[in-house]
């Protein structure tokens, strides 16, 4: 069964790219445009990997990671944060919240697939 990725980003361009890349790599991709929507989706769907942007309206990525980690079914789900050019503060905030790893934007498609595969259970 295809593994299910939840892609969270307020930018449609980014969501489209992540979706396109991972779908072509055989993943099933769900999209959410902010943390609130992602959290709602996460509560109703089974998700294998979460990819989230950090700067988003309504609920940012760091809060989302915390919220997800508070859900029993997400205690050990890999969560990757997407940051720009290695913004250390953001990265560390993601880490403190419980993220599994980070991916820098811009990313190359094959790298995105590689890192998602790497963390995928």
């Amino acid at each position, binding site marked *: 069964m295809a593994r299910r990725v939840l892609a969270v980003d307020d*930018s449609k361009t980014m969501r489209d790219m992540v979706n396109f890349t991972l779908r072509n790599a055989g993943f099933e991709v769900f999209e959410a445009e902010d943390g609130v929507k992602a*959290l709602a989706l996460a509560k109703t769907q089974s998700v294998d990997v979460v990819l989230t942007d950090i700067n*988003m309206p309504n609920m940012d990525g760091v809060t989302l990671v915390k919220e997800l980690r508070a859900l029993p079914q997400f205690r050990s789900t890999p969560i990757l944060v997407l940051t720009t050019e290695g913004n250390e503060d953001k990265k560390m905030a993601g880490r403190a919240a419980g993220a599994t790893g980070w991916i820098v934007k811009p*990313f190359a498609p094959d790298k995105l697939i590689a890192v998602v595969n790497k963390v995928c259970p």
Partner: protein
Amino acid sequence: MSTEARNDYAQFRQTFFAESAEMLADMDERLEALKTGRLDREELDAVFRAVHSIKAGAGMFDYRSLVDFAHGFEALLDRLRDGRMSVNATVGGLIIRAADILAELVAAAQAERAAPSGMGADVMVAINGLLGEGATPVTPAIAPVEIRDDTHRVEIRFTPHADLMRKANEPLLLIRELSGLGHLKTVCDSSRVPELESINSDDCYLSWTFELETTAGDDAIREVFEFVEDDAEIAIVRALAEAQDEGFGLWLDTEVADVAPGPVALTSDEPGGKRPPAQTSIRVDLSRVDRLVNMVGELVISQAMLRQELATHNLPVVDGLESLDVLTRELQDCVMAIRMQPVRSVFARMPRLVRDVAARLDKQVRLVMVGEQTELDKTVLEELSDPLTHMIRNSVDHGIEAPAIRIAAGKPAEGALTLSASHVGSNILIQIEDDGAGIDRARLVAKAVEKGIVAPGAVLSDDEILDLIFAPGFSTAETVSDVSGRGVGMDVVRRNIQKIGGRIQVSSIAGKGTRFTLIIPLTLAVLDGMLISVGTERYILPLTSIIESFRPAAAQVRQLSGGGRIVNVRGEFVPLLGLGRVFGVSDAICDPVHGLVVLTETATGGRLGLVVDGLIGQQQVVIKSLQTNFTAVPGISGGTILGDGRVALILDIEQLASLEETAA
């Protein structure tokens, strides 16, 4: 990023630019608050996110100058967000300039041309200056030079078998030895430890994951575990160092358990949020919507044909057709509503424009906007943006006087410019009104004579004089300023407005001000019409322009010496126009006493009585352009196909009103 990767993502360019345009427009609107010297946290966050998203997207397509500039802009906004700097006039001005440059860089990227070199460099210098000496200057976002040495990170997963300790091995010693190789982070997994009563004190229930930063090779690491190789699962993963350079990485010591479980309030649930959550929407290709609009249009026509066919045979299904009628109409309304957008998206750019232009000309202008919620067809709205921008610029430049002149004329130093939108029937009226000097007729005529547009000594009516400003190549500004004079004249404005089926009118009172009125059709697709007969011909009259119809008594109608006729409607004299005469329908009734007078009103309030044979009935029609299918005909705005398959022409009251003097 590889070229290959970029090609993969090229298909998302359109999405990126559409999204960027939206974000830039939104940003403009939010930055309005800066005028008052403040910027709310909420606005600041939104602007920051927009800049950030543009930067991230631009990075994916490798638009370097855009990424670099956005990066600097973002740094400035970030400084404001974390409170290390506050908004003042300098910072506010800088943000506005930065937003402009960002927009221009996006436009350059979209047009696939290189941005002028050094564009935004001054703003960048100013930003770096503001960020202070203590701070690290903003460096280009991409291409950090990584200093690589032989240190690399290794992940080691150590999962001992249960009997590890019974074989006299001590994990602690291994860990100590490992830490001797470099910087070590240790995560212990205790999830396999059973309940106390079932614990066997000799068994090893723990497992470890180590993250080691070391210069040592794999062999040295393996050596540490040499004696436990058979009693444990050992995995050495060395991908981390490379992975980090490639722009991603994993944290292995993430302690998930630290996060407090339990419900945490969602931020969105907080009461008192000022801005309502973004509306859920989907993006649909405009061509699909257009296709839908067309299909529904055809549906309306074929339904009308069917209805007529059935009615002539007097079949009982006609009753059932009533509900189909209602549904079709609702369907059409729904489809049309998809294309409707509030004029706010165009109006929103105007305050900035007025402020910029006024500042450059040392004028004081207060812009009042009314009716921003008024909705208009998207295509029409887009076409409106340029003419409106030009006219607003004109009003500030030529209309409103300098403060000193205003005061001398007994007016307040601050000029008022009103931009309003409102529904009038099936039209939208957009008015741009200033309280400036008004149009100087004498100068206008002098200029027109000088340019050879008007013959010297020609006698012109006031309307004709005002109309001169729309003549091609006409400009009254003594010197071509960089504000209004960009080679685009009012003639282009008028052409643009006509292109979307609209008209432009100007009225001006010397010393009091000038008002431009744009009359724009709400939509280019459907019309509520009244089918009228003129001899054997059928015409459609826009329902909204009809006031009443009546058959006048002979005494009500008077012949004028110039050839025209007027009708007395309860004391008011209204010019008459015989449609049969105008369109050359030979068998039409020309005498209103024997036919019917349809009293109509133009969008600007003028009245005209049309002499017709009779009224047939009310009908919604799908407008087909006559201009694209045939050629423009005076007095006709388009054509439509009737239920019986015949073509009926749609009358344009405004144009008919001007025909009246010549043809009737």
